[in-house]
């Protein structure tokens, strides 16, 4: 089937489904009608869409950790602990990296080795291997909605099993779970595979079950300028809406400069709503999620709490509907449950204290909002142009042309020519804009901001500045100043 941004016909979807479910034995457990009945019995208390709606109306920010381990009982115990001790508002099963690459046999070996070793040897929960019934034990173990979080270019089977398994929210998209998460997967394939996932979520909706679809805003988590991640989020929202999805959450990874981050979070839902409206998709609910700093962390736990608290403050002041929480063990990898709970509690303390405060409009904030709007619009409009109005085709062509270019992405289908760096106040700008479709005024803005930093540091902006910025937060700073 040729890639097009067009709702999949039922026969196409159901014939593809047979192949998808046959890829691993647990695929046989999925029965869509029975799954719908299960979701209806479970009710609104497990619905991520309902919880997000409530958060949006009441103006509060939900705190959600990442959490996944190899063994089923440990996963259940972990989620219970993060709900009770960590006070998490909603929870995830974070999926292990073998499953993300569809390497279920290796995931199975990881489960066996974890049993033998008595500790998790996998960095997440291998949901496909466990199957539908085990997933239901996970979601039933807690009273809050549970989401699937991962990084899977082809997540069709994972979506089938986890949605039938009672999860009510599924993260990812054909761009955001390919370009940062794969090296050889063509966008034509990942976009089509995610059309399948969105069509599946659309099917649930048509049968009375709202599945929340969240797109992975941080991308590579490494100095991604907001205009680029916003453009990707808007495009993924359009692709999902075409397949019948009506409940989307757009994400953004905190960069560290408060004004830029607040501007990013304020513009994100407006831009998505504008484009959804303009492209004829009605009745789509848009919410937002801020990811606390996704780059390198300080190893010192007190310093890490400082980074976490700054992310929490940003989420609260920017009015994010949800914040994804880091832990004091971030610098050394996957955290244990105590460290994970500690990160949530630090976050919630700050969220609660800032609940009734917001950022007043200032000239700086207004300018930043205008810049992010102009950047996102330039990229999305050019992408639509390149596809002659078809956003799926346009995306493939936009990546080929470097109109969308994600810094530090492993995919060979990403141009990889763009280089970001911080300006003198720590906002992320473009050192090398490569082929982004920006007008003269935008390019001048970026160049001037980096020139200003260059003058202060008495050096020419260059690759060393980028490296210094990548390590800076881990070393206790925001801007990577020369030593």
């Amino acid at each position, binding site marked *: 089937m040729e890639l097009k941004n067009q709702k999949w016909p039922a026969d196409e979807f159901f014939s593809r489904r047979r192949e998808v479910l046959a890829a691993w034995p647990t695929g046989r457990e999925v029965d869509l009608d029975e799954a719908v009945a299960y979701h209806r019995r479970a009710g609104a208390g497990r619905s991520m869409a309902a919880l997000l709606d409530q958060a949006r109306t009441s103006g509060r920010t939900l705190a959600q950790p990442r959490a996944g381990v190899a063994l089923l009982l440990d996963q259940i115990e972990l989620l219970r602990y993060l709900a009770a001790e960590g006070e998490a508002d909603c929870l995830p099963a974070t999926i292990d*990296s073998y499953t993300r690459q569809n390497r279920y046999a290796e995931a199975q070996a990881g489960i066996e080795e974890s049993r033998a070793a008595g500790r998790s040897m996998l960095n997440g929960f291998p949901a496909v291997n466990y199957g539908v019934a085990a997933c239901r034990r996970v979601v039933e173990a807690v009273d809050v909605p549970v989401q699937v979080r991962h990084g899977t270019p082809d997540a069709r089977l994972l979506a089938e099993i986890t949605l039938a398994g009672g999860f009510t929210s599924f993260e990812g998209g054909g761009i955001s779970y390919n370009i940062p998460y794969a090296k050889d997967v063509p966008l034509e394939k990942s976009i089509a595979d995610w059309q399948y996932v969105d069509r599946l979520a659309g099917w649930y909706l048509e049968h009375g079950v709202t599945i929340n679809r969240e797109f992975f805003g941080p991308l590579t988590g490494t100095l991604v300028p907001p205009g680029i991640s916003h453009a990707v989020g808007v495009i993924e929202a359009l692709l999902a809406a075409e397949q019948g999805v009506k409940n989307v959450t757009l994400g953004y990874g905190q960069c560290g400069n408060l004004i830029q981050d607040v501007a990013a979070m304020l513009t994100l839902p407006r831009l998505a709503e504008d484009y959804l409206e303009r492209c004829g998709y009605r009745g789509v609910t848009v919410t937002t999620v801020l990811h606390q700093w996704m780059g390198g962390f300080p190893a010192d736990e007190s310093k890490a709490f400082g980074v976490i608290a700054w992310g929490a403050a940003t989420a609260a002041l920017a009015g994010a509907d949800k914040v994804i929480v880091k832990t004091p063990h971030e610098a050394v990898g996957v955290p244990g449950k105590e460290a994970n709970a500690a990160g949530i509690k630090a976050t919630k303390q700050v969220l609660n204290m800032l609940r009734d405060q917001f950022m007043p409009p200032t000239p700086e904030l207004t300018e930043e909002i205008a810049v992010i709007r102009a950047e996102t619009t330039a990229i999305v409009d050019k992408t639509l142009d390149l596809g002659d109005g078809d956003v799926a085709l346009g995306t493939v062509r936009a990546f080929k042309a470097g109109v969308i270019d994600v810094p530090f992405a492993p995919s060979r289908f990403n141009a990889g020519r763009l280089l970001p760096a911080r300006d003198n106040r720590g906002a992320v700008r473009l050192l090398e804009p490569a082929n982004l479709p920006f007008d003269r005024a935008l390019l001048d803005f970026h160049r001037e901001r980096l020139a200003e930093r260059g003058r202060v540091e008495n050096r020419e902006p260059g690759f060393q500045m980028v490296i210094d910025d990548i390590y800076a937060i881990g070393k206790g700073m925001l801007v990577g100043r020369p030593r």
Partner: protein
Amino acid sequence: MTEEKTVVLGVIGADVHAVGNRILAYALAQAGFKVANIGVLATREEFINAALETDAAAIWVSSLYGHGELDCRGLRDQAAEAGLERILMYVGGNLVVGKQDWAGVEKRFKDMGFDRVYPPGTMPGRAIADLMRDLGLVNEVD
């Protein structure tokens, strides 16, 4: 002399962490090494084949996602079988799941046959200095 020496660089297993890989490649090249960068999602076979093809002096394995313990097993034996008995092997990153005692982690990876094992947060310069020393190139850096 360093421009004669090649380092095979890659991120092993199902790991897609690309940033450190890019920085290590840059730092090694700046220090005068040739870099055979096989990138992310690299299999053990790709490391060995790249080392054979480039007559490499060292293999640098990165692992940031916690599965390093599962992914790295057998690499030393496979290298020996391929005739690379004496090749230097370094590994670094977030090698295991969870915050574990470093001495234990280091020992586990040394037992697997790695010459040097680096904890999270190691700067590229430290491993490059070790490589210079292990290859007898120390005087040239001074």
